Structures are given as C-alpha cells and as structure tokens.
C-alpha cells in the first residue's frame, strides 16, 4: 500500500454538500417558484379571494389557511423538491459521477437533509412573516404549541424526505420528473384539506387522504395555529395528534425501507 491518505470526514463533506445544494436550489427558477414561493403565493391569493368569509370565532380566511400552507410547504420542500431533483440528477449522470468519487453516500444524503431543513425553515419563516405582518394572522405564543409544532415539523420533513428519495425512481427521465411528481402532490393537497376545509370534503375523499402523510401534517398544523375550539370541526372532534404521530412515523419507516431498497446511482437503462 502506498501512503495512506486520510479521507475528508463524512460530516465535513456533508456540510459542503449542503452548501452546494442550497446554492443550486436558489438558482433554479422552477424549484424557487413551485417549491419555495408556491404556498406563500397561494396563501395570499386565498386570503384575498375568501377575504369576506369568516370561519367562526373571529378566524379569518388567512388564519384558517395558514396551517394548511405551512404543511403544504413542508411537503413541497421535502417530498417534491427531493423527488424531482434526485430524478434529474440520476438522469443526467450527476449521481453516477458522485458514485465514482470517494464521497460517501452518507455525505450525499446529509446534503439533501441539509437542503430540506434549510429551505423548509426559511420558507416557514417567510410564510409566518407574510401571514403575521401582511395578512394579520394571529400567531400563537404558547410554548406548548411551539413544542408541538417542532415535533410535527420534524416528523413531516423526515417522512417527506425519505418518501421523496424513494419516489425519485418513478419518473422515467429527468424531463418527466416535474410532470410525474407535481400532479401527485397537487392531488394530495386537494384531498388533504390544504385548499379546502377538510371536514367539508366528501367522506370517501377524507378516507383516502387519511392514508397519506399530508392530511396528518395539515391537521397537526391546524392544532398549532387555530384556536383550540376548532378541534370540534375535525372528524371525531379532536386534533388526533396521537394517530397523526403514528401515521407519520409509519410513513417515515416505510419510506426509509423503500428508499434504501430502490435508490440507485445510475439510470435504469444503464444495466
């Protein structure tokens, strides 16, 4: 063996990958519009359209839709962002090139987690700022609500991320990635009560939505940002936080297992 050189640590390379990922994210117009600003723009549109409607207890349209948009933002920044970007990276042989270097796979995934955390926290902060300052949304101040927010946020980003990594193998090419991923996300948003009042949706739609994580993410966020009395408008009359935690954790585990099995560094046609 010739001189043994010390490889850069997985952590250090992971940090450097995070920086690179974030830099690239904010330079990509499509990601910026359809992942980062999408929920903020929709919140503004919704509060303008439903400006006259009140939802009881002095809750305005802006306040009512804020938790849905926050949940939706988390899902976009994790699931949509990763599944599209990884599908493109695989198709354009970016992953193949990385695989040929001594970069460890853990560093690559650390970079993706870093990207999701950075963008979703920034998106949430901006959403909160717009809601609080421009749309007059009441922001909760109770510590226990923020504690609740933290675990829902973490479970949401984590499960969205692993599912996004797994789903990145579905689009057959990089070009098809947006076209395959976006409708899935859009459908889930409609069924999960992001754009509508969830309890107004038909029962069968509620049943389908409650299989998927976004519904629980949105419900959890409503429990943080809406007055406590609003739990009576939920199915069963409670926020169902326990069930939500279980469903999100299940998706996290299932996503992790699937992602590990299906993730590949080369294109499908690469043999």
């Amino acid at each position: 063996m010739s001189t043994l050189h010390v490889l850069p640590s997985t952590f250090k390379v992971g940090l450097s990958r995070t920086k690179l990922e974030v830099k690239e994210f904010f330079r990509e117009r499509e990601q910026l519009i359809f992942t980062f600003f999408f929920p903020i723009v929709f919140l503004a549109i919704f509060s303008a359209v439903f400006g006259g409607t009140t939802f009881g207890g002095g809750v305005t349209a802006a306040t009512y839709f804020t938790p849905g948009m926050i949940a939706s933002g988390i899902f976009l920044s994790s699931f949509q962002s990763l599944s599209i970007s990884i599908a493109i990276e695989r198709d354009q042989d970016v992953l193949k090139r990385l695989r040929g270097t001594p970069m460890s796979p853990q560093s690559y995934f650390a970079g993706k987690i870093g990207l999701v955390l950075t963008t979703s926290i920034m998106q949430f902060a901006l959403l909160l700022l717009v809601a609080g300052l421009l749309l007059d949304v009441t922001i909760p101040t109770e510590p226990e609500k923020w504690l609740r927010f933290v675990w829902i946020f973490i479970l949401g980003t984590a499960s969205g991320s692993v599912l996004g990594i797994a789903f990145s193998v579905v689009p057959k090419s990089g070009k098809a990635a947006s076209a395959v991923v976006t409708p899935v996300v859009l459908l889930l948003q409609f069924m999960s009560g992001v754009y509508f009042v969830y309890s107004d949706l038909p029962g069968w739609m509620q049943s389908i939505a409650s299989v998927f994580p976004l519904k629980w993410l949105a419900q959890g966020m409503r429990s943080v940002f809406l007055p406590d009395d609003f739990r009576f408008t939920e199915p069963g009359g409670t926020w169902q936080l326990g069930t939500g935690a279980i469903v999100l954790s299940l998706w996290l585990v299932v996503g992790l297992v699937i992602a590990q099995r299906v993730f590949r560094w080369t294109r499908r046609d690469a043999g």
Partner: protein
Amino acid sequence: METDKAVRVRGLVKRYPDKVAVAGVDLDINRGEVFALLGPNGAGKTTTVEILEGYRHADEGQIDVLGSDPARGDRQWRARIGIVAQSSRDEAELTVAELVHHFAGYYPSPRDPEEVIAAVGLEEKRKTRTRKLSGGQRRRLDVALGVIGNPELLFLDEPTTGFDPEARRQFWTLIRNLRTEGTTILLTTHYLDEAEELADRVGVIADGKMIEVATPDTLGGRGARTARVSWLAADGLQEIRTDTPTAEVTRLLAQYGGEVPELQVRRPSLEDVYLELIGKASVAGAELEGAVR
C-alpha cells in the same frame, strides 16, 4: 497486493439478458502507461471500462485494479482513481470554479483547483454556470473533475468527442503532462490519430474479445505498416507491398521512362490497420455464426 500492474484482468465475462457483452477479456495495464482501448460501438469497450471503474459487476473473471477488486472498491480505493465517463449531461446552475473546488473537497490529497481549471483551459469560464458551457467546454470540465483528486489511474471514456481540432491538441498536451507526472491512463476513443498520438499500447476489442494488443506502430503484425506502391498499369490498378518504396519507384520510372500513371506511395495509418483488424474479426465472427448454424 500491489504489483507493477495498475490493471490486471483475466477471463472477464459480462452477460446481459439479450447478449454477451464481454466474452473472456484479458488485459494488463502497466503503471505509468497510457493504454488505448479501441473497438467499434457495441464491442464491449464501455462495459469493460465500467467494470474496472466499479460501476458494473463482472459475471466471471479475475479483476484487479490498483490492488483491489473494483466490485469491492472502498472510498480509499476510489480516492486513487479518476473517472471521465462517456456522457455528461448535467446542466447545473453551479459555476466551473464552484464545482472544481467542491470536488477537491472529496479527496485526501487533491490537486490545486485553480491549476486544474487552468490546465483544462477554462480560466475564462471560471464563473460561468455549467448550463451555459459549450459541449467541448463541458467535456473539459469533466476532465477537470476527473483529475482533481490527483488519481494514480485515470479512466478517459471517449474524452474528445465534440472537440474542435485545436481543443483536441490542447487536450493531448494535458494528457501528456499527466503521463509525465506518472498517471496511468486507460483511454477509449474512436479517433485513431488520438490513440497513435497518446498511447504507449493499444488494445482492439471486437465482439467482446480482445483481438490484439500491441504498440501503435506494431499493431497488425509485421507487414501491416509496410509501404504500398500503386499505379495504373495497362491491365488495371497495380499495388505492391514493399520495404523499399524508393527502389520500386525508381524501377517504375525506368520502366515508364517518365510519369508513372496514378502513382501513389502510401504507408497504412493506424486507422487502416485497425479497420483491417475489425474487418477480419467481423468476417471471422460471421463465419463462426454460419458454422454454428
């Protein structure tokens, strides 16, 4: 085990569902040498190279690359090789300098990123996003990312496809410099002049088999590069092979007592030799298939 061989392959076989891509290839590449692998499309070149790089796994055979089996190559092993793969299509929003500096961070003892950028001639494009690079410039960025880790063994898969003649000459200088510094290089190319210019030895693959390995000037065996003298005689075009073309031309001059019609003295290029080899291989393959049927 470390030897004087950078690559040692015995009996490499790779099967795909619809065909046998590599049918028993042996290959030795010495440390510090530039080895060019030639062969038509679909001959098994890329499959062979991708097995040596660790991207694909062989079905049979002993493979040793820098003392390890590539299928079990770890990060330490990958730090010692450099790969410039055939296709590169990434349209990143990152600049040349950002990418080269970032990739340097993967390696234990990388080259200086700015020197590498200069060596591939991309200084003026340092701050250009890869999306905006031309095909040739992007290829040079690929080379920069392939050599940034200061590899002992560099794989170059058709590196100059899409280059203009001047860029190709610059690229050749870069490769010669790497060789002078002791880098072992495995090059696959469609350009025979490139192989002739750069390679210490060439190997020709056809139908998944290595049909010949030799130095560029001895490929095809004795006589392959012998001069051809041809002219138009009364009964049609004549061609003779000779080691003494000048004597032959003098003889013809005396015979015709002036201009010899359509006189040509030609030394077969590596390309001529190669095409003849490939031609023989495909004829032999066809005969074999016929015999089996």
